[in-house]
């Protein structure tokens, strides 16, 4: 029997940037892949603009553990200003993956954070969102970057799911904007 892999992701964002929606979308996409998942935000007195965290667990087998994620393998930062405000690498695996929404190169982030080990990915998801969706909400492009960085599923599965999921609520223009946002972030994300 192959070892069951439990992937744990922590999302850092500011209230209003769509981290909870991203965690939810990822869970639903995982379901469409036949996987098990948990997606849960950390609830506190948050409001628009305040730092928030959300968590996702994904596994091919049922997930029993219910405590919060202390040692994530993957950390996704939706707002670069959080790098100075929050210890985003707290408890993170030594060989983990850090994905940051920023215009900076991965090397510059590594230097600024004094970070050793880990793989750093950067992409300007806010600009991509502005240019594709018309609003600076970085959550869907960051999903594209996450899929590229982790290889957790083929890009086509994610874009198919975005079409299916958004299709119920949004116009064709918004859906295709989101699909382009995912595809561009997938193509533009840089690694070090």
């Amino acid at each position, binding site marked *: 029997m192959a070892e069951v892999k439990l992937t744990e992701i922590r999302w850092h964002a500011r209230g209003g940037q769509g981290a909870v929606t991203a965690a939810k979308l990822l*869970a639903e996409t995982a379901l469409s892949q036949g996987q098990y*998942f*948990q997606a849960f935000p950390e609830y506190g007195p948050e409001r628009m603009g305040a730092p928030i965290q959300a968590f996702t667990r994904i596994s091919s087998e049922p997930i029993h553990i219910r405590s919060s994620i202390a040692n994530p393998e993957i950390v996704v930062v939706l707002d670069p200003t959080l790098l100075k405000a929050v210890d985003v690498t707290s408890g993170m695996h030594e060989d983990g993956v850090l994905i940051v929404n920023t215009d900076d190169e991965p090397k510059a982030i590594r230097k600024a954070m004094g970070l050793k080990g880990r793989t750093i990915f950067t992409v300007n998801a806010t600009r991509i969102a502005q240019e594709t969706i018309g609003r600076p909400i970085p959550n869907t492009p960051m999903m594209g970057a996450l899929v590229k960085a982790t290889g957790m599923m083929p890009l086509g599965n994610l874009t198919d799911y975005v079409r299916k999921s958004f299709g119920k609520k949004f116009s064709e223009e918004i859906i295709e904007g989101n699909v382009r946002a995912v595809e561009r972030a997938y193509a533009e994300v840089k690694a070090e």
Partner: protein
Amino acid sequence: MAKTATKQKTVAMTGNAGCALAMKQINPDVVAAYPITPQTTIVEEFANYVADGVVDTEYINVESEHSAMSACIGASAAGARVMTSTSSQGLALMWEELSIASALRLPIVMQTVNRALSGPINIHCDHSDSMGARDMGWIHLFAETAQEAYDNTIMALKIAEHKDVRLPVMSMHDGFITSHAIDRFEVLDDADVKKFVGDYMPKYSLLYNPNEPVTFGPFAMPAFYYEQRKQLRVAIDGSKEIVMKVTDDFAKLSGRQYGLFEEYRLDDADVAIVVLGSTAGTARYTIDAMRAQGVKVGMLKLRVFRPFPAAELAEALGKVKAVGVMDRSDSAGSLGGPVYTEIKAALYNSKQRPAMQGYVYGLGGRDTGPDQIETVVNDLVKVVKGEESPREAVTLLGVKE
């Protein structure tokens, strides 16, 4: 999971959305509820079903939980199928109505999303709200996951309305941990739920049987009060059998078999943890890891807290050498948490009595990870090896000193 002929759909939903869906599928006649975190999304979502016209429910907007339970009592006495939901201070505000609902033998189903009681004010999970209502004559069911919260809601209604039970039921799940996390679970077809719960035709009601008039809630002086309380005890003691009958019927429909409690790797265990709610999942995860290192540990997850399955628990736990009971609520001034003291009492006359230790954990949503479960197991192993005597005082896990 056993295969059944029933078609089910796999969903990605929060526990609260699952509970609202179960309510929609039950289609109660009356819902009277007042929003309170973390229950709010249940009544919010259910209000959408009402507004969309997919249920026939009379949704009563009330100004408080006291009024919510009062309206539920009135509607249930009239003969309606009634549901509600609350948490924490909301349940506390219902207090004086809770004992009336059970004494009048009204089959009201209430989803109770467990949240710490104030104070200080807190919105996160512990079981102090429903444990505070443990002596109110309601049946208490606990869920570990969103799946169980959904399933228990459907079973709760059938148990409550059974002609030999006719008691209100609280169906608990953990605030935020289960209520707000998106989880994967299976949901039944609307038609299957409808068929399972069936039509509700109460034997006694104010409206259905005008030719057989009845009185609900008369004054009872010393000559009659005691006998009514006896009837309540007989009813709730006897409900254990019906709880299991409904549970077994539900297993035939869904393929998901539950019990009064679940035994996990308990057969050859030296030490056991007793826990209820979502922490059972973290305990299962930790037990697997410790078993891999050769520690003979198992778990007993309590699902039915009222009626308290004392004899069954004594038999199941009599097999092990030491038991640690984990309570997500304290009973300040008592020996320990409510589950601990009751299980200890249940084992007192038992021929095989394991050593017992009580633990309180996770108050006000304090995170409970595998490290805390390991601490309990390691403590128990020391007792079994004779390195330590069983502690008399309750241990508060994960508290800052």
